[in-house]
């Protein structure tokens, strides 16, 4: 098989509320953490990847702030919370094309310290956004837009609130072992369906947390990866895809993962059944359900049955997911969960997840990110990682 590139460094910021740190500082701290993890130094970085959370014009201010001296490749692909998963694929391609040797990817933000009402406030992306005049007057929020995906899924496939609740229950079973998790308490299906309704049919506990923090990844060419002392985690497959409103031909039952997933599986030459662990973007429980189906872990419409009765709990179910507690219980730094999805997948592949949730011999793992609005415009990135 063709040599691709390896994830040699991964670091998740331990903070969940960064009142005394700037966003730029958080970016730099996670970059340093990932370099330390990899056993590389500042001047080894010759590729830099960041997205819309980086303050300044694209990443130029962060390049300046961090004093990156050896850059020869730079990519600011912005796809919301999935950006960093997509960046992994772009970094691999850049390395394979000889554009850089060591790529740094950073994410950081502090919506919690800033008091942001991420999911329940009507938010605009600014002036001149062509679709917003047709949405903002209606008071649409991130929560209502995701909720409509759930409503339709329930209508079309008979999915239930109790089935959706199992996703949170599984995340909470994992979060209890994570000392940094914002919601470390194990919850039951009853706890979820009895929590206040935020946007029908989504309850408060069907939604992710709002947290500060960030994370970073280092992707390196094979020769460099093999010279380091960390377990070898190869990027075996990757894919990216974008979905929109199709000029009104809206179908809320699937995400762009229905396209990015098959791309990644084809590159990797493996099937969904081969995957031992999956990090699935969990802004809301319904996001997870739709992506599981789209990635081929179960048939379209069968996600409810797949996740119920502990289907996603490590050591219990068919497909252990988000063993750090995910966005639903652990953190969702900068309202963008893709970075932490890759980081936990790397931990699993290395065998460095918490022993209570580590999947035995997790030599083939997947991370999927979804960024933007599940019901309208979004991008998905899928990566398949192999411990070699």
């Amino acid at each position, binding site marked *: 098989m063709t040599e691709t590139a390896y994830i040699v460094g991964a670091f998740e910021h331990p903070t969940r509320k960064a009142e005394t740190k700037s966003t730029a500082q958080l970016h730099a701290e996670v970059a340093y953490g990932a370099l330390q993890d990899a056993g590389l130094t500042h001047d080894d970085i010759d590729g830099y990847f960041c997205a819309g959370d980086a303050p300044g014009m694209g990443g130029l201010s962060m390049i300046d702030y961090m004093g990156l001296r050896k850059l020869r490749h730079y990519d600011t692909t912005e796809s919301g919370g999935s950006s960093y998963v997509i960046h992994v694929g772009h970094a691999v391609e850049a390395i394979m094309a000889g554009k850089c040797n060591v790529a740094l990817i950073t994410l950081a933000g502090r919506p919690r310290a800033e008091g942001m009402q991420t999911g*329940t406030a009507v938010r605009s992306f600014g002036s001149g956004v062509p679709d917003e005049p*047709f949405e903002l007057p209606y*008071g649409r929020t991130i*929560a*209502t837009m995701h909720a409509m995906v759930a409503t339709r899924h329930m209508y079309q496939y008979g999915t239930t609130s109790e089935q959706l609740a199992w996703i949170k229950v599984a995340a909470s079973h994992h979060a209890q072992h994570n000392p940094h998790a914002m919601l470390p308490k194990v919850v039951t299906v009853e706890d979820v369906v009895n929590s206040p*309704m935020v*946007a029908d049919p989504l309850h408060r506990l069907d939604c992710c947390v709002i947290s500060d923090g960030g994370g970073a990844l280092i992707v390196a060419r094979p020769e460099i990866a093999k010279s380091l002392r960390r377990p070898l985690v190869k990027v075996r497959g990757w894919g990216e895809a974008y979905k929109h409103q199709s000029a009104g031909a*809206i179908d809320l039952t699937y995400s762009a993962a229905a396209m990015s997933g098959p791309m990644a599986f084809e590159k990797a030459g493996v099937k969904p059944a081969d995957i031992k662990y999956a990090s699935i973007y969990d802004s809301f429980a319904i996001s997870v359900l739709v992506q599981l189906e789209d990635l081929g872990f179960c048939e379209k419409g069968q996600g409810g049955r797949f996740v119920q009765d502990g289907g996603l709990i490590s050591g219990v179910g068919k497909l252990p997911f988000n063993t750090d507690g995910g966005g639903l219980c652990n953190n969702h730094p900068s309202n963008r969960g893709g970075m932490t999805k890759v980081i936990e997948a790397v931990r699993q592949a290395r065998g460095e997840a918490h022993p209570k949730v580590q999947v035995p011999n997790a030599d083939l793992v997947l991370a999927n990110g979804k960024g933007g609005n599940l*019901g*309208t415009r979004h991008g998905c990135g899928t990566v398949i990682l192999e411990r070699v």
Partner: protein
Amino acid sequence: MATMAFDRTPSAPQESPDNKPYWDGAREGKLILGRCNDTSKFFHYPRHVSPFTLSNNVEFVQAKGTGTIYSWSVARGKEPYAVAYVQLDEGPIMLTNIVNCDLDALACGQKVKVTFRATEENGAPVPMFEPA
């Protein structure tokens, strides 16, 4: 138990030369759809470019103003309101609010008809839907 939708005043839509025919229509109580003359397909939201071919061979036509609820949610708060995707009889699905309704009785497939609501700061009225 019935929960009547809160009759919120929508924010004014940001108008531009690109979307002007839609809001001009709304001021006359007409719901406007885009139509691509290259493909004879309707589209929403209306724009001066065909999202099917990228040509400017488009026109703005009046929709019947009737449709069915494709999906819905209720933003719960002190003043609950319903956000929905309504499939127009012409085909396209549009984001909207369902008003004059019992929020506890909304359902996919429910028949609805257009009604216009005034917006803040004398902005263009926006199309909403109520049970037909």
